[in-house]
């Protein structure tokens, strides 16, 4: 039998990107503890809609932790009080009856608030468009083992590629740095044979775009890694730095004179 609880929500309400926002206190009544956090917000929104008020605007899509759409800083932590999950995977049993929950959007200059709790994360898209791809026609399916990739390298690339681009790393970082995201996207190509041709242009282009978007600078606190719902490791950032400094100082194409 599900336990039911009443909660006090302090929710950031903001009309649009032009106006200033503020916290509004909303009561969430009769919430079952086996609901997800987003289902709790759905219930609150139904209630608001019945009252003729504007529902709380928040991002969500797959609701099974794989799309990276849901966000929310809940009581001071991205995706709420648990580790390794997204907000849609957070259940109300992580809270108790009578608790006050502060809900804020991701805070970063590069993630402007669109409305209430939804932020514009297209800065991530622009970083991807700057170099997060392989610029050749892939053609047909290659024969198995035609391109050998050692197992450990394949695993490492796969782990980097599990980044869902939710932006929790930026939200958690005291400097609003996007380096965990960018490093994961650089790593997934830098590790694999298909990514080699554009390896160093990619690192430079994506880091330039990251800087242009106004993200902060990493101070290696490790907050991003701890809060990442997909467990993207800090070693990706070290790899990104290696890629970038190699590109700048010892890149094979640049160290010789060509006519």
């Amino acid at each position, binding site marked *: 039998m599900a336990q039911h609880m009443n909660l006090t929500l302090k929710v950031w309400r903001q009309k649009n990107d032009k106006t200033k926002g503020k916290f509004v206190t909303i009561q969430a009544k009769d919430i079952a503890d086996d609901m997800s956090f987003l289902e709790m917000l759905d219930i609150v929104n139904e209630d608001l809609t019945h009252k003729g008020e504007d529902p709380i605007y928040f991002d969500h899509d797959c609701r099974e932790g794989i799309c990276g759409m849901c966000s929310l800083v809940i009581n001071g932590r991205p995706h709420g009080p648990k580790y390794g999950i997204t907000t849609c995977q957070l259940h109300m049993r992580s809270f108790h009856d009578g608790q006050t929950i502060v809900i804020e959007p991701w805070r970063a200059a590069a993630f402007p608030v669109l409305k209430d709790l939804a932020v514009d994360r297209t800065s991530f898209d622009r970083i991807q468009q700057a170099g997060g791809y392989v610029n050749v026609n892939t053609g047909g399916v290659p024969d198995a083992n035609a391109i050998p990739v050692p197992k450990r390298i394949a695993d490492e690339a796969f782990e980097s590629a599990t980044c869902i681009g939710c932006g929790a790393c930026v939200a958690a970082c005291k400097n609003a740095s996007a380096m965990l995201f960018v490093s994961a996207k650089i790593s997934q190509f830098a590790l694999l044979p298909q990514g080699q041709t554009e390896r160093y*242009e990619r690192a430079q282009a994506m880091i330039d775009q990251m800087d242009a978007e106004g993200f902060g600078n990493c101070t290696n606190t490790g907050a991003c890694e701890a809060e990442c719902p997909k467990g993207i490791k800090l070693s990706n950032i070290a790899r990104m730095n290696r890629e970038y400094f190699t590109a700048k100082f010892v890149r094979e194409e640049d160290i010789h004179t060509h006519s």
Partner: protein
Amino acid sequence: MSNSKPVLSSSLGRKLIMSLTGIFLCTFLIVHLIGNLQLFNNDEGYAFNQYAYFMTHFTPIKVVSYLLYASIILHAIYALVLTMKNKAARPIGYAQFNGAANSKWNSRNMGILGTIILVFLATHMYNFWWKYHNDQVPYVEYRTDLATGNTTAQEIQATEFNDYQVTTENNVEIIKARDLYKQVDFAFQNIGIVIFYVIAMAALSFHLIHGFKSAFQTLGVSHRKYVPIIEFLSVWVFGIIIPIGFALMPLYFYFVK
């Protein structure tokens, strides 16, 4: 994909400057601690004052010392620039931010710790470096009987001191030197200075426990074999041995001497 901006105007370039200057300053601390262990010699500064003269007059050391001052200034300026950029990257802060859930306190407060260290450095340089270079320390004459090896020390007046001199008369070695040792002794009789030095060394400890290993992460060193060694050095050498070694100096002069 395009070829891109100069290194030093990029986020990673600025981090590289922080990393390299930081590691250089860490290596300096090792030399500084080992040299200053001579303060614990019970010889009225005989060894320490000769060492001080050597460190301020030997050309290669002087070159390195100017690199050192430049590194301190660069490290502080880049820290300020990066901090301002980081603040600009989050113009509206969180009403509630639970940093303790995901990161260590010192890693989030490197700026505050660094500022304490910078204020300490200004005080420290004024007390010893500036006074030593501007004839505001006492003078001393050491007489060593070369037959017996016994050394006696005596304070001398500015008029009796021309420059650092080592002479031998009648089988007695006479050394005239600026008495930095006495200046150290004098400064560390002030309880305010002693407390400030100890606090600054605590700040140094927390700064370096994060800073030393962070510098290597920035350089791209990430390895299951070598990172544990770097982390060990961060904690034991730069977080414990060096700050405690330095903190013992004012405590020794205040409580023991």
